[in-house]
């Protein structure tokens, strides 16, 4: 499974009302180009903060599901965030890590995920639902079986893939449409 296939599975399997927070670099750029939607928040700079943003969002709106699409190097850059998530126990947060063992958005320099058992770590710090996936079917099943979080799906993907995606630039507009989407959802829930 490569990045493109993993992203396709995630974006077509999660619920239509789920919020998506995607990490810096090619992951956000691929999602922006192929699955841009009002439910998406891209983290164009500030590498590592996608899971923190997802936790803040999940705590602010505990009845909405939040899906974080992270990378292995960006998780390692803000590893304390996993501990915070385990401590706060957001049941509505699903943290998916696409692990290609590299800083793939740079020049594919090796990260250190190959010597770390990140799924074991997630379980030890308090994630309630921990799965690994290395195929599209496995990833789809892991997402569909997710019930009560915090959830963590370590998804092994191959290095490589397309790089010439455009960048999300109109961030203030992306913020406004996301917040409208979330407000509308909240009103709908009250009916």
């Amino acid at each position, binding site marked *: 499974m490569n990045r493109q296939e993993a992203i396709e599975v995630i974006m077509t399997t999660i619920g239509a009302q789920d919020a998506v927070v995607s990490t810096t670099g090619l992951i956000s750029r691929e999602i922006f180009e192929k699955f841009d939607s009002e439910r998406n928040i891209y983290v164009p*700079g*500030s590498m590592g*903060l*996608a899971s*923190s943003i997802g936790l*803040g969002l999940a705590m602010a709106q505990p009845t909405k599901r939040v899906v974080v699409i992270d990378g292995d190097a960006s998780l390692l850059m803000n590893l304390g965030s996993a501990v915070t998530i385990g401590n*706060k126990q957001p049941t509505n947060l699903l943290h998916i890590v696409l692990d290609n063992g590299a800083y793939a958005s740079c020049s594919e320099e090796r990260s250190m995920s190959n010597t770390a058992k990140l799924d074991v770590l997630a379980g030890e710090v308090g994630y309630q639902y921990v799965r690994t996936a290395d195929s599209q079917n496995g990833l789809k099943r892991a997402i569909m079986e997710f019930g009560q979080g915090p959830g963590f799906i370590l998804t092994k993907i191959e290095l490589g893939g397309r790089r010439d995606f455009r960048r999300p630039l109109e961030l203030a507009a992306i*913020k406004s449409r996301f917040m409208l989407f979330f407000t509308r959802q909240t009103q709908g829930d009250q009916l």
Partner: protein
Amino acid sequence: MNQNDKGVFNALAGDRSEKADLLHGVFRKLGVNFASGVPCGVLRHIIKNFEDDAAMLHVIANRESEAVGLAVGAYFGGKTPVIYMQNSGLFSASNDIASLLVPYRMPIFFVVSYRGCEGEDAVQHLTTGQATERLLESFGLPFKVFENQNLENLTRSLFETMRKAGLPTFLLLKRGWHR
């Protein structure tokens, strides 16, 4: 709560600050309902007020960058967050402020303790101390140093500036500000 936790809170027993209580009240009136940050002794009364207020979602972060991320998520989720940290941490989080809060036009309020000023006894604060205001000026972000002005008016006016500009905005508090 275990005995050790009690010990931690006992460190503040009888150590209240009218100014910190006033600031908390102003935050409440301005709609603040989420707080995240990294502790600093200069801010201890503010942090205790966040912690003791059941209407406030409060997350103590491991690093200043993490606090920025948490507050951004809370803001996206409709909350009004405040972030607190020491000015040393402001430098750690400076790229997150520049690359996330500024391009997303996030009006998020920061309370930053201002070490490395006149009378500083710790050498590790001197370099960041003399660069703090220049950092914020170079980013083009609004800030004010509290020098015993009317704290309510100062905070309200900073919030107004922040909401008009759509930018992160900073209140700097020096040691002894709370007395």
